[in-house]
């Protein structure tokens, strides 16, 4: 395989992630997190996942960055200096090595899925329900976009569960951030050092 443009984008992502890890200016790190999401959206487009790409660009690069900046406005904008620790580094290296060992049985990138039976070099993922979804979208739904059909119909319960998760998260955020009524008349000043 010639050097693909995907690999180039991966190198950009890698550089962004390393800079995020090293920066102590949290404002710059938040903006770089948005850039990381936007770069990954480009990568998703190259991997034919256009729906994932525009969701990532809108949600990951847009809303997540706004949330980060909002948090920084309410807290501190600089990270404290801290000594380099070796134990997390060792843990991360070991985990990474275990994960790479786990990928050795995976099909190569871009493995074709043609044919009804899994053959040598074919990825098993393409022989499960995906061919039925592509066929059914055309015949049963008469929709052009397969992802829409699967999201809203074949796997509608997943989407329902997702909605429940967002609802729960929204309630959680509201409960945490909206100041509630004070119980009786215990301390009116509400000092920021108060551990409650």
């Amino acid at each position, binding site marked *: 395989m010639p*050097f693909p443009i995907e690999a180039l984008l991966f190198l950009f992502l890698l550089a962004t992630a390393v800079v995020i*890890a090293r920066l102590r200016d949290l404002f710059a790190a938040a903006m770089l997190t948005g850039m990381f999401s936007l770069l990954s959206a480009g990568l998703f487009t190259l991997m034919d996942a256009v729906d994932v790409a525009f969701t990532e660009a809108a949600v*990951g690069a847009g809303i997540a960055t706004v949330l980060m900046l909002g948090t920084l406005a309410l807290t501190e904008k600089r990270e404290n200096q801290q000594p380099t620790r070796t134990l*997390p580094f060792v843990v991360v290296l070991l985990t990474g090595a275990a994960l790479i060992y786990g990928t050795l049985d995976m099909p190569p990138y871009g493995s074709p899925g043609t044919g009804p039976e899994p053959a040598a070099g074919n990825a098993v*993922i393409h022989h499960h329900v995906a061919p039925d979804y592509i066929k059914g979208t055309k015949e049963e739904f008469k929709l052009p976009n397969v992802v829409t059909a699967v999201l809203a119909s074949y796997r509608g319960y997943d989407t329902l569960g997702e909605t429940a*998760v967002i609802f729960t998260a*929204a309630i959680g955020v509201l409960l945490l*951030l909206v100041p509630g009524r004070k119980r009786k008349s215990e301390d009116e000043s509400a000092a920021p050092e108060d551990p409650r």
Partner: protein
Amino acid sequence: MDLPGLWNYWAVIVLMMIGLYIVIARDNLVKKMMGLTIFQVSAIMLYVSMGKVEGGTAPIIPEGAHDSEIVYSNPLPHVLMLTAIVVGIATTALGLAIVVRIYKAYGTVEEDEIGAVDRREA
């Protein structure tokens, strides 16, 4: 220059480990959330890259297309990862809200300083 066929998984794992390192090694809670974001995007990328078919195109059926004349990439990981992105932003929002709440209570978002405040009061 040729790449090994499994390069996509390895690249994703390296990104994922950078995210994990930020989460476990940094004391700043906002920075931890950024690491978590990197980790989430990498996990999503792992699944999307599995669905890619060489020579395939986005799973959108053009007008008047006939059976099996076009190769589509696998739409299933795309759908599942759409869900994962939205759940990821919900997690991030909740995590950042907890960070803001911790800052209100302790006056800091550094983990070691929070621990120091707790020990002083215990």
